[in-house]
């Protein structure tokens, strides 16, 4: 499988995140500091959007429209309609403190963020919609239920707490006694996975109301990704990428995972291509590796980015993906074989 670089753009700093618009016409680049960039599908820079103080956190596109929301350590959240104008349509001062996470609901009606222990949900225009009781500690990540756009999970010290819009109490809580840092919800709504402060993953099966604890990782798990069919969960946590089956009544319980070697340093970013079983893995060794775990544990293709691959985003339809590196490069890559 061949990987071709079709564009390289230099951002102002370590790339924290990349996000394609719903139709793949725009790519948002979030560097740790400096301007947030807006690129077209071929990697040409269309606009530079203002930063968020000490550090940016997230720039994320609406799931159905060309609307972009950004936030950062200045406690501000900005919403843009980048096709029309590169000035923010709305700027909301959420509060004094860092906004570290931001996610549109799957139906695009809401936007969730967290300010310290507060989980805050705004409507699509940025007006306050819901606020929940304070969490035990600062929220480090959140995830909407892809199957139910009124359900959201937040993680912090104490594990994961699941809320439903309009309800004052959480409808579920998975407190395993430690801190969770990352959270992902499978596309079918069945599984919730957390990456923890200890080198472990907690996985919750909503159909059975049943928690699983996966240990044995070399390091903290910094990357989690369910494939779009919700059949597999890919996890980092060292040099090996570990893929757990999430099918059947018991899912990963008692199953032997697939372990995918290839990186010489920790895996720090993972992303499945929508609709197929190609998994992209970014490593601290500077390598982007494409795996097809269903057929082989061996890498299908590799690309040397020269610096840690900190962010990966597959184009929603075209056979291409964007990667962002620790030294601030954004590379748009094409994989012609995936077009066949």
């Amino acid at each position: 499988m061949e990987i071709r670089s079709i564009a390289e753009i230099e951002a102002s700093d370590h790339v924290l995140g990349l996000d394609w618009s719903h139709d793949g016409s725009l790519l948002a680049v979030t560097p740790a500091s400096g301007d947030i960039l807006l690129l077209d599908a071929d990697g040409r820079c269309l606009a530079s959007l203002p930063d968020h103080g000490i550090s940016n956190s997230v720039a994320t596109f609406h799931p159905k429209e060309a609307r972009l929301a950004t936030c950062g350590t200045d406690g501000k959240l900005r919403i843009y309609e980048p096709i029309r104008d590169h000035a923010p349509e709305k700027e909301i001062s959420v509060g004094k403190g860092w906004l570290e996470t931001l996610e549109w609901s799957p139906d695009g009606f809401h936007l969730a963020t967290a300010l310290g222990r507060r989980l805050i949900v705004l409507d699509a225009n940025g007006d306050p919609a819901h606020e929940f009781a304070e969490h035990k500690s600062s929220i480090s990540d959140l995830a909407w239920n892809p199957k139910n756009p009124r359900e959201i999970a937040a993680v912090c010290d104490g594990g994961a707490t699941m809320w439903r819009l309009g309800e004052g109490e959480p409808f579920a809580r998975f407190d395993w006694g430690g801190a969770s840092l990352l959270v992902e919800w499978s596309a079918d709504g069945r599984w919730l996975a957390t990456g923890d402060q200890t080198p472990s993953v907690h996985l919750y099966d909503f159909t059975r109301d049943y928690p699983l604890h996966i240990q044995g990782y070399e390091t903290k798990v910094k990357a989690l990704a369910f494939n779009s069919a919700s059949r597999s969960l890919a996890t980092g946590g060292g040099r090996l990428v570990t893929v757990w089956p999430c099918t059947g009544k018991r899912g990963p319980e008692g199953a032997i995972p697939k372990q995918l070697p290839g990186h010489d340093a920790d895996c720090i970013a993972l992303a499945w291509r929508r609709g197929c079983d190609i998994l992209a893995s970014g490593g601290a060794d500077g390598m982007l590796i494409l795996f097809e775990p269903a057929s082989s544990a061996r890498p299908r293709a590799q690309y040397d980015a020269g610096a840690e691959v900190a962010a990966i985003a597959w184009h929603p339809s075209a056979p291409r993906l964007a990667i962002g590196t620790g030294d601030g490069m954004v590379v748009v890559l094409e994989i012609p074989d995936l077009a066949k």
Partner: protein
Amino acid sequence: MTDKPRIPVTILTGFLGAGKTTLLNRILTAQHGKRVAVIENEFGEIGIDHELVVSTDEEIFEMNNGCICCTVRGDLIRILGKLVKRRDRFDRVIVETTGLADPGPVVQTFFMDDDMKENFVVDSVVTVVDAKHVLLHLDTSDDSDEAREQVAFADVLILNKCDLVGPADLEDLERRLRGINALAKIHRAIECDIDLNHVLEVGGFNLDHATEIDPHFLEPEDDHDHHHHHHHDEHVTSVGIEADGDCDGRKVNAWLTELVRTQGQDIFRMKGVFAIAGNPDRVIFQGVHMLIDAANGGPWGDRKRANRIVFIGRNLDRKALNDGFRACLV
């Protein structure tokens, strides 16, 4: 992929009103050419406009059923994990704790979390002490445990507001603090006006400095200070052990392992050097609670082979520690 140098961290402790903010403002306004990031506690009041001052709630992550030795500061992991990704990385970090905070989890954060360990190195714990009021905290107040622990954890004690206390009382106070922490360097100051090299370039956790133990403090208790000997019922104290000759490496290892397993919660700091039989080099170590770090300290050369260890902790049994170590001698 690049081997960036680790960023030194200074942990600044001290009770409310002792002068921490004064010291921080001095550090931030001094012309030392370093970019300093400050993580100040939620009550922090740094008065100058500075880009890299971040306020935080002190959030403890318990990692192993609440064991104090396994707790880390989640807020530091989150905040510093983000800041360290900036291209224009800062040269130094200062973490200011609240007056009531236990410095243990702050120190442990930089030893136990892989990302923190990779990017940061603890330079020292600096405790600012209000010379006028510290005895109140040490002796009578509800927070005496915290006050003693802050003194016990320190590599540097800044005895501030010395102008408010007479010379004899200052001597007594220093002696009292030494009884709690025999390893710390004590600097007297007024309004925290102190050479910043005494604060920022300490190397308190550097193993190369682990053997810089003033032999004076290894003498038996009653052999010094007899002119002004006051009895304080300290349950936070220093215990020094010194013994010539070699010890058995396996026995030392077993002794230390058992010691931190059973008493790690009460041992705040430990440092020392061992002469291990059959090893031509010095073995140096330092530790915090259950965490122990050891390294080769280079050849003994012309120095006499001898063992020196200091423990600082709560309810230490001097005799048991001495007996335990002496059983390791060959």
